[in-house]
């Protein structure tokens, strides 16, 4: 019995998972016992490949007492862009969410924080108006309530189906970070696979501290596009977290199992 990674929420009660259920690691092809794989927070025990997490899973493994904000915001179709509505509807059914961004209040080791996570399963975690609005409100409300902000991105970038409305979210969210920074509240940006393009080129790069998961692809233009445009071949690790670390672009790479602890430690060092 092989299970698709998406089908198994980390939060599911482990006893309900049959012991014979296995999950295949796409990186090393090892068949992992799904129960163990879930206990390992969806990482491969063999090669430590980090599977993508959904937004709710992400927030669940990092925080307690999550209380969603702005759940009611729903996307529109400003350009009447072909195929946008059916694609979006399919994503809504697949994820059960109105759009790709989940945000709210939570605690980490009893410290109140504001947190947001994007869901790659919803149109590649792309940033349209709802995503940008929720991130902006996250920063604004965190400012009001004096909470540090954490964001975890997994995204291909701006959502082209909302055209200029998506592009404007880059400016809007970057300006929101600037206000938080001026009020001396910390912002930690967690970069998970993939963190690219319009999102990486706005708020996600502006954390006081940038923490990446191992192997996460992080960059602006995707490797395939660069290869096509310049007719070159890029190394396999191009834009990996390890590559970005070597080029001075991120502060630390933390395995998922230690992520929560690291974030709590960082927040304590910056705030206590």
């Amino acid at each position, binding site marked *: 019995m092989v299970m698709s990674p998406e089908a198994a929420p980390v939060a599911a009660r482990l006893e309900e998972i049959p012991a014979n259920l296995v999950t295949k690691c796409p990186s090393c092809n090892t068949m992992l016992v799904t129960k163990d794989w879930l206990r390992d927070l969806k990482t491969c025990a063999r090669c430590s490949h980090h599977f993508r997490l959904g937004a709710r899973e992400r927030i669940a493994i990092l925080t307690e007492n999550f209380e969603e904000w702005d759940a*009611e*915001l*729903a*996307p*529109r*179709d*400003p*350009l009447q*862009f*072909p195929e946008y509505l059916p694609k979006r509807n399919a994503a809504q059914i697949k994820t059960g969410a109105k759009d790709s961004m989940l945000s709210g209040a939570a605690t980490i080791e009893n410290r109140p924080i504001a947190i947001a996570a994007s869901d790659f399963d919803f149109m590649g975690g792309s940033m349209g*108006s*709802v995503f*940008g*609005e929720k991130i*902006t409100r996250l920063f604004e409300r965190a400012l009001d309530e004096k909470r540090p902000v954490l964001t975890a991105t997994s995204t291909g970038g*701006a959502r*082209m189906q*909302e*055209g*200029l*409305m*998506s*592009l*404007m*979210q*880059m*400016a*809007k969210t*970057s*300006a929101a*970070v*600037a*206000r938080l*920074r*001026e009020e001396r509240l910390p912002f930690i940006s967690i970069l998970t696979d993939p963190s690219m*393009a*319009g999102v*990486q*080129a*706005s*708020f*996600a*790069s*502006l954390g006081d501290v940038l923490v990446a998961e191992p192997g996460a692809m*992080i*960059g*602006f*233009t995707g490797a395939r*596009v*660069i290869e*096509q*445009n*310049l007719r*070159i071949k*890029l190394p396999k690790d*191009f*834009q990996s977290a390890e590559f970005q670390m070597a*080029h*001075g*672009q991120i502060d630390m790479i933390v395995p998922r199992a230690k992520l929560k602890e690291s974030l709590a430690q960082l927040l304590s060092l910056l705030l206590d």
Partner: protein
Amino acid sequence: MLSRWLHLEQPIVDIEEQIDEIKRLAATENLDQSTKINRLEERKRDVMRRIFSDLSPWERVQMARHPKRPYSLDYIGALCSDWVELHGDRAFGDDGAIVAGFARLNGRSVAVIGNQKGRDTKERQLRNFGQPSPEGLRKAGRVMEMAARFGRPIISLIDTQGAACSPAAEERGISEAIAHSQLLMSRLKVPIIVVIIGEGCSGGAIATALGDRVLMLEHAYYSVISPEACASILFRDPARAAEVSGQLKITADDALRLGVIEEIIPEPLGGAHRDLKGMSAALGAAIEKHLSALEALSPEELLEGRYQRFRKLGDLDDPQVATAHLNGTPV
């Protein structure tokens, strides 16, 4: 060698060639052909009015990329005196894709930054087609911070298909450079006027487009992604860019309707490249008007206004408020 005229301009060029021919003949044969010439000039204007009153989005993209289209330095030269260009990011290099410096505009000293394209093959390479690298954005940031320190307003001219696309740009943090430029511009306590003068695509454009006013030339376009890149993603076929360019709503009219720009600056009949002087005068007047209005504001009002300008952009359903967003007007 590139063709210097667009296909859509052919009827105009044909008439111009006729006029030139008649003028030449008239000169050699010493005849008065002024009536004939006047009639042709009249016809040329009619043809131009017809062509330019109804450009398709793809035709506008072509106009924005016209090989004769004025670039940032052309406008700076036509509009400003005392242009002093500054160079370098103080850390790695000097990016030819971005020019930055100070100049005098209507007697007022301003900082000007702009994407700069190259006119010939060699200069195009040198300037990377106006596509900024991290060091270009960091140079611009340095000059903008200096402008803020000395209370000089900032004019940012946008003309790029996007940020530099290369391993080198990725290695030196193009994402961070784009993000940081926006963060910086959102807090500078001097007026910032942004003008999309040609192409305004993607992160490479928004990087330096966070201002108090965003204006657009009539035939410029502004888009989250270049039509070719969008067509590549949607259809794996960049040749379908023409089709996609309509769907992306990237013309100045679209941008105005979406609330993304404040004003369209009309171009001379036939486009900016047919009358740099006329275009520059219109551009200068528009900048002057907005700068004067902004100079009346306190730094706090300026920053608050700039923040709210972008804050309200987006189109979504919010059940908490009666109507949808997007400047309060449904689309």
